[in-house]
């Protein structure tokens, strides 16, 4: 049986609109600001994960996007969670929370730096949050680039998937900067492509990733 790297689900969240495997999802109330939109989406998904409310917006967006690709894929139940990698990238690192941390230290008469804010001043905390929620303990990497580089992400994930330590990978682009935000995430599984699945099943190629992203 030939196992091929296959994209089994993907998700896009942008302009208060959500697409899963190419289909637009109806959102109850989407004419709200970004923070309220994230909470609406969380409630609509019935996640019941109170930690969500402690997260910054970048992590909230990441947790929701990851949930979409994990809930809506054709994966079989049995897989080793220590072989699931998470590779993400963005443009602005953790700049929104960086600005929030600076607000807490800029005024010496109103000085209140907080570990609850500071911990989110690293972009790979999203990887940590996704790893904790889904118990994925495999490879990690967070890259920062001007725009989403599907060629590079394809290359890096493909190399990892050639190793016996990695069978699956959650990959994508997740950016928050002021009111601008964007999430694009996809789930790759090494599988027998002939086996019927109930979600998206497409070869993991850079061209396909670009196509799904655009």
């Amino acid at each position, binding site marked *: 049986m030939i196992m091929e790297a296959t994209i089994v689900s993907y998700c896009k969240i942008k302009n208060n609109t959500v697409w899963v495997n190419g289909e637009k999802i109806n959102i109850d109330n989407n004419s709200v600001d970004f923070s309220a939109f994230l909470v609406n989406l969380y409630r609509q998904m019935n996640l019941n994960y109170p930690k969500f409310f402690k997260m910054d917006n970048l992590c909230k967006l990441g947790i929701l996007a990851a949930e979409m690709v994990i809930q809506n894929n054709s994966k079989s139940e049995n897989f080793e*969670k*220590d072989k699931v990698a*998470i590779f993400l990238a963005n*443009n*602005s*690192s953790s*700049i929104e929370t*960086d*600005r929030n*941390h*600076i607000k*807490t*230290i800029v005024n010496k008469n109103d000085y209140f*730096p*907080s*570990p609850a804010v*500071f*911990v989110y*001043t*690293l*972009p*790979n*905390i999203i*990887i*940590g*949050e996704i*790893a*904790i929620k*889904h*118990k*994925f*303990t*495999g*490879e*990690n*990497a*967070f*890259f*920062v*680039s*001007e725009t989403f580089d599907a060629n*590079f992400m394809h*290359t*890096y994930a493909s*190399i*990892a998937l050639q*190793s016996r*330590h990695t069978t699956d990978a959650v990959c994508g682009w997740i950016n928050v900067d002021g009111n601008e935000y964007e999430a694009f995430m996809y789930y790759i599984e090494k599988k027998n492509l002939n086996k019927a699945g109930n979600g998206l099943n497409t070869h993991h190629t850079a061209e396909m990733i670009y196509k799904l992203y655009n």
Partner: protein
Amino acid sequence: MITYLGANNIISPLGFTTAQNLEALARGEVAVKKQQFHFSESIFCCSKIEDSTLNSYFSAISNITTYTNLEKMCILSIQDVVQQSGIDLKNKENLLIISTTKGNIDVLEGVYKNMDSNRAYLPVFAKTVGNYFGCAITPLVVSNACISGLLAIIAGKRLIENGNYKNIIVCGADIVSEFTLSGFKSFNALSDEPSKPFDKNRTGINLGEAASGILLSSDEISSIKISAGNSANDANHISGPSRNGDGLFNAVTKTLEDSKTETVDFISAHGTATEFNDEMESVAFSRAKLDHLPLNSLKGYYGHTLGAAGVLESVIAINSLASNTLIKSMGFELQGTSHELNVIKKTEQKTINSCLKTASGFGGCNAAAIFEKV
């Protein structure tokens, strides 16, 4: 295919070349010291490069007002690697990887009067450094907390062995800023005294700033290779290490499996000198049955240099291998972890052929790599 580790550099308060740094370590000098900054009444024990020193080195190659401190450190470090090796980053076969946690965070703080605020974005910072060298390929940026540097070296190895590039310069860099000092202080993670990794009386981290560069190549440029490298996540807590050392244990185990190395001769550990980190490392090394190996942390000399740490510590480890020197773990006196570790108390000459380098960080991330003589 083999990835060789060649020309390297360290920019730190202990010197602006690797040789200067190694000489300072041999003399037992430390870069961390108590100092005060304009933004706080507190005294911080940290490792900071003097502006005047940085500018006097940098003015020899370019205009000091055009670049931020971090950019100057990176350019000087990469320039040294380029000069030693003759590697031309204008060639498409060669890539620059930059590892950093906070980049030009001082730009966001408003430290510079005439610097475009866009420089606070990591891609803009990386491009500014890349443009100095006329990079044909846009530099790749790895920002993965305290494993950034080691992860960047592992990524470099993978890209070379996958045939994407022939030569890769990895440069890790971070500055000490009000941003990071206030943040780590809010965590009660900072030590007021020079840090004591793995010691019973350790009281926390010293922050440090540094840039460090190293050349990775498919050409046989040296007698040391990186034979394996992997990462793993604890999936436990975003700001605390796993009590049972799961992530580090997994990263180490995968790496030992891949390397086919018969023996590891010493460990260049992460050792931040926080209670939980050092304890976690002792648990992980004990589980991996590596707790008998000579081990050091360099945080007692340099503090925690964040995105630079993995590169700087790898550079020292590789030079240790080349010169058969086990470097004293500064600050260690008494066993202070639940599993006894063989912490190096005195610098000594010993034939060593391979080194396990590890790192762990916020977000539950861990990385491990093996460097060995060919």
